[in-house]
C-alpha cells in the first residue's frame, strides 16, 4: 500500500467555448519499480500507478498506460479542447487496487 498518495491538478476555471487549455496533473507516489532490492536483499514488490485517465463530461480526453520505468511522482501535462462548460474528471489507478480521483469544473466565459 503506497502511502502519502495525493493527486493534484492545475486547470483553468474559465475558458472560451472551443478554446484549447493546458492541464497539468501530478500525483505523489513512490512508483516502486519492482526491480530494486531492499536492505535485506529481497526484491521490493512493484507498486506503481498503472493507468491514468482524464474525461470531460464523460468523454475520454486521455488514457495512459503507465509502466514501471516511470519516475516517482508522475507528472502529466496535456492540452484539451473545452467545447462547453463541464467537469474534467481525473482518475489514477494504483497496482494495489486503489483509485484516486479529482474533478475540476470549467466554466465558459
Amino acid at each position: 500500500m503506497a502511502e502519502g498518495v495525493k493527486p493534484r491538478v492545475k486547470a483553468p476555471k474559465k475558458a472560451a467555448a472551443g478554446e484549447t487549455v493546458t492541464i497539468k496533473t501530478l500525483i505523489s507516489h513512490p512508483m516502486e519499480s519492482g526491480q530494486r532490492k531492499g536492505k535485506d536483499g529481497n526484491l521490493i514488490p512493484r507498486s506503481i500507478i498503472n493507468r491514468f485517465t482524464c474525461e470531460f463530461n464523460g468523454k475520454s480526453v486521455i488514457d495512459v498506460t503507465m509502466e514501471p520505468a516511470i519516475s516517482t511522482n508522475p507528472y502529466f501535462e496535456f492540452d484539451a479542447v473545452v467545447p462547453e462548460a463541464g467537469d474534467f474528471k481525473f482518475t489514477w489507478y494504483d497496482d494495489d487496487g486503489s483509485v484516486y480521483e479529482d474533478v475540476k469544473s470549467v466554466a465558459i466565459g
Partner: protein
Amino acid sequence: MKFKAMTALAGLLAISAVGAANADPVEDELVINDEIEIVTRTAAPEHMEYIDEIMSGWLFREDDTRDMERDDFDNPGMLAVEAAMEVWETADGTEGKSCADCHGSVEEADIAGVRAVYPKWHEASGEVRTLEMAINDCRTEQMGAEPWGYTSADLTNMSALMSYMSRGLPMNVAIDGPVQATWERGKEIYYTRYGQLELACANCHEDNYGNMIRADHLSQGQTNAFPAYRLKDAALVPIHKRFQGCIRDTRAETFSPGSPEFVALELYVASRGNGLSVEGPSVRN
C-alpha cells in the same frame, strides 16, 4: 569572467570553445508563479576578492530545468514543502507541542527572512548554528522530541518550508562579530585543496564557473537555492549533502553533515551569496 581567461589552461580553453553553445550562464530572469521576483544575478559582496558578479546556479541549468522552477506546480520540491506543512501542525515529543503552537500556523508564522540570515551566531551555546541545527534545537529543547537526522527527509523537508517562507528575500548572513572566527575557518576550507585530485572549492566554483567539467556545467556553487530538488536523485538535497558530494568527487574523505567544518563552510559559502534571493526549494539537475 575575466578571471577565467587568466587561469584556464590552454586545453580548457579549447574545450570551452567547443562547448560554447551551452557553456556560460544564460541571460534569463526568474519570476516564480508570475509574482515572486528572484534576484539571480547581482554585485558580489565586498569581501569577495576574485569575483565581481554573483549568480544563482539557476542560470547555469538547461532551459527545461529552469522552467520547472517558474511554477510551483512544476517544482517537485514543493511536495516536500507540503509534507512539512503537515508536520508543522502535528504535535510531537513529550511536551505535546507542534511548531504551530509556538510559531502560529504556516500562514501567520513570523518566519519570513529566517532562512536568509542562517547560519548565524547562537548566543546560549556560543557557536554558529545552521538552520537545520536550529530546527533540531527547537525539537529537543521546546518540544521534547527526538532530533531529526541531519540529512534526513524530515529535516530537509522542514528546511525547504523555511526557504519557501523566505523566498525572494535577499540572503544576508553576518560575517563579523562573534561569527568571524568561524567564517575565517570556512574561507580557509574553501581555498584548501582536498583529495587525490587536489581540488579546492575555488578551483571549480571560482576559477572555472561557466566551464564544463566533463558533462557538468560548473556554477558558482551558491547555497541560496537549497534545499535543491536534484532530478538525478529525484529528491531534495540539503546543503551539507551537496558539500559531501563535491568533496567526494575530489576523491577525499569528506567531513560529516553537521560537522563544525561544514558549518563553517556553509557560513562562508552563504556569505558569498549575500544579495541573491532565497530560492529554495529549487530544481537542479
